[in-house]
């Protein structure tokens, strides 16, 4: 009985910090009515030095178009391993994409910046469509995009 209790205590002690180190974060992207086909969006993060830290989401499934998400493509060389398991459909004009991800706490208030690159068929590419620092204070505050994104919000 004593060993069982000790095991339970140990597993709980090991599990709890893991749960506390991440939280569900909802990223909401609303598109403008730009009058074109579905937009490809790359959501990725850079660190305090501006270096690429990783991707959070890719809206659009065909890798041959990723070169038009030019900043993301430059940072990753179009490596699809960066977006395995975090890739979905492109986002149509006027529609809202809502993604809930389990993100590490260390991303917030540590100088990380979330970027969105956007590209639409037969329309201008828009690298850095949205740029927003990841802070706990900034949660819930809409940020306006440059061309295709009406607004972007992250909620914790």
């Amino acid at each position, binding site marked *: 009985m004593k060993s069982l209790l000790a095991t339970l205590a140990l597993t709980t002690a090991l599990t709890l910090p*893991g*749960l506390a*180190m*991440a*939280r*569900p974060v909802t990223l909401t992207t609303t598109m403008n009515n730009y009058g074109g*086909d*579905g937009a*490809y969006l790359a959501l990725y*993060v850079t660190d305090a030095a501006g270096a690429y*830290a*990783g*991707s*959070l*989401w*890719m809206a659009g*499934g*065909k*890798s*041959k*178009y990723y070169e*038009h998400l030019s900043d993301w493509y430059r940072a990753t060389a*179009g490596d*699809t*391993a*960066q*977006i*395995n*398991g*975090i*890739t*979905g*459909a*492109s*986002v149509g004009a006027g*529609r*809202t*994409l*809502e*993604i*809930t*991800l*389990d*993100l*590490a706490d*260390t*991303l917030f208030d540590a100088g990380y910046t979330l970027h969105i690159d956007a*590209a*639409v*068929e*037969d*329309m*201008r*590419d828009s690298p850095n469509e949205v740029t927003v620092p990841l802070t706990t204070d900034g949660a819930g505050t809409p940020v306006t995009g440059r061309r295709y994104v009406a607004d972007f919000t992250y909620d914790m």
Partner: protein
Amino acid sequence: MVRPDWTHHTNGDTTMKKTLILLAATTALSAAIAAPTWSAVRTSDSPVQLFAAILEFGQDAMPLILASGDDDDDREYRNGSRSEDDDDDRERKYRSGSRRDDDDDDDECDGDDQDDDDCGGSARNAAPAGTTPPPQNGLFGNGTPPVVQMN
């Protein structure tokens, strides 16, 4: 008088028999896996062609049939003018902000689309969300799959 331990001998024989059966089974399994592989990597003048010959049997009898509707009379109307683009799959064609006439026969496999999976190129599309866990890039927590909603 000391009696011989017949029980022990019987158990030993059973164990030996089981071991032998297990060894025979694993050897047979290895042989079954290795033989086709060996045949597949053979050189053309290798005498070991038995399994490869079996695998290739009938290939001549099954000609490759390409089923494609791309040469149908599908036309897209853009900007008030008709561009004769003979692919009908509504794929996006990003071309650096300028519209482009798709008057070639099959632009899906031309030089600038070398990474197109439709062409059987080497590049692969990423695994969709939900099919694999998010990448281990330090940004995600415990591998909980993303929840996506499009409104």
